[in-house]
């Protein structure tokens, strides 16, 4: 079993505290949604938990090892990371972009071992991209591109996946498709931490919801326990009607 664990993790940039004493956990077999308004510190929490951003105090352990001390390759083999900004510099083919997911195993586009090629093919299958493998990535639609990035992350075949807003700016159907992929990944034994802004989508898919506001984690638990009218008002400043796992937002307070 793989796990990512932070204890009292604090991130400071200049005078601003971006994350304050956060205790976050992610284990294989669960899909965790990280929620909170813009600027709550979600991305900073993820990056510092992964050791990509310096922390001020606290600890972040990836399978028991300090994530800041891991080499990028070691880290990449344990957790795949899908950042919020996903610019592609060159018009590579879909297969070559996905092949980059195998970088931590010494692979490069056009230089894949048999095991690498299999992992790439599996990811292409999971993300339903088999008809697009030779297309140049700059000719794809937003939804197709999102699937390519997911496939790139899946191709790493790391036990854990951290995805920062993987469904931002996608149409409803693609949002569901991406979340279905995340669910399949978890059902197959992975663990996924996903930043979402769509509460209804999060409530539908997540095993656990982690709520952040003003640099702090304010709640962490199952949707049934943590998704309440009061919490929606407190975190997002909206009036919401909640019935089990379904949410209807009625307006700003």
């Amino acid at each position, binding site marked *: 079993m793989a796990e990512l664990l932070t204890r009292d993790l604090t991130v400071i940039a200049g005078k601003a505290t971006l994350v304050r004493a956060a205790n976050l956990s992610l284990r294989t077999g669960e899909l965790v949604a990280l929620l909170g308004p813009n600027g709550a510190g979600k991305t900073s929490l993820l990056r510092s938990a992964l050791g990509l951003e310096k922390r001020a105090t606290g600890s972040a352990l990836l399978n028991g090892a300090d994530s800041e001390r891991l080499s990028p390759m070691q880290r990449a083999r344990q957790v795949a990371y899908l950042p919020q900004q*996903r610019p592609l510099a060159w018009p590579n083919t879909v297969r070559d972009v996905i092949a980059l997911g195998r970088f931590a195993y010494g692979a490069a*586009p056009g230089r894949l071992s048999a095991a690498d090629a299999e992992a790439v093919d599996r990811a292409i299958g999971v993300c339903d991209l088999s008809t697009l493998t030779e297309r140049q990535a700059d000719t794809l639609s937003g939804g197709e591109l999102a699937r390519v990035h997911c496939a790139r992350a899946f191709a790493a075949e790391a036990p854990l996946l951290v995805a920062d807003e993987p469904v931002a700016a996608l149409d409803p159907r693609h949002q569901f498709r991406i979340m279905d992929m995340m669910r399949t990944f978890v059902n197959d034994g992975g663990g996924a931490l996903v930043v979402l802004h769509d509460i209804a989508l999060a409530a539908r898919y997540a095993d656990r919801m982690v709520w952040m506001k003003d640099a702090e984690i304010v709640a962490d638990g199952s949707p049934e326990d943590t998704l309440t009218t009061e919490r929606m008002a407190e975190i997002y400043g909206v009036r919401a009607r909640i019935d089990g796992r379904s949410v209807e937002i009625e307006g700003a307070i």
Partner: protein
Amino acid sequence: MSGRLLVPILAAASLLAIFAACLLGSTPLPADRVLAAFFGGADVGDRLVVWQIRLPRAIAAFVTGAALGISGAALQGLLRNPLAEPGVLGVSASASLFATFSLYYGLATLSSWVLPIAAIAGALAATALIALAAIRTRSVVTLILIGVGLSSFSGAAMSLLMNLAPNPFSLSDMINWMLGSVANRSFQEVGLAAPFLILGGGILLFSRRGLSALTLGEEAASGIGLNLRNQRILTVLGAGLATGGSVALAGAIGFVGIVAPHIIRPFVRHDPARSLLPSALLAGLILVLADIGVRLLPTSNELKLGVVAALIGAPAFVWIAIQRRALNG
């Protein structure tokens, strides 16, 4: 054309071009006499023309182009922009400024290593500055503007040195540096630049896999296992050494490093790592051909290679920039 044939074809074309460079010139030599001269036969005059004049010059043009081509391809991979290039980023200009400095103060007469080392110091200083700026800003336009600033400053400083030049001879030396040329290069000069060119090229080839990772952007690249800091250091060091070495040999020659990778990229599926070696070969080939052209053109004063390269390369730069605008809005 398949990517596998690209390198052999370019290598063969380069050899052919270098051979052709030995045939052509003010007194054309037939192929059999050149071949005989290569293998130690032929008469003394032929051997002299081939071994002392034409071959070193052609090889100087080739390695200069190759160094600029590989540096351009690597810098484009690192900065994720097809307009990055030692000339555009001000690296060549800084290198020639440092080289001119060592000429002006007579330092270059102390040891024949002073000039290449000065050029490399200038190239490394400029490359490091660009890479530092690249950490702070995501905007490549900013980087190119910094490069323009560096070029202008180096140009101004060189003008100052020319203004103060003690005699017409040092003035003409400096102008040669600014314009870029491989005329009258000997194997000794090629040998002085060679260690730096080989080391720089080697570092760039050794670290090329990380350039593919950077296709995804820096954030995702470190996510998939790239050590970003090491990658930056290696690419900057490699490009600095190679560019500095080329400037030490031939002065500042612009735009080859932008044109060659641009032509190569579609053949290597736009993978920056795989573009390095073919870009180096193609850029070398281009400069050998351009230098043949320079020698054959019936002008009263021989044209400078750097001038011809810029005349061809600058419009290509503009064209690539305009295309890019259409693509990315």
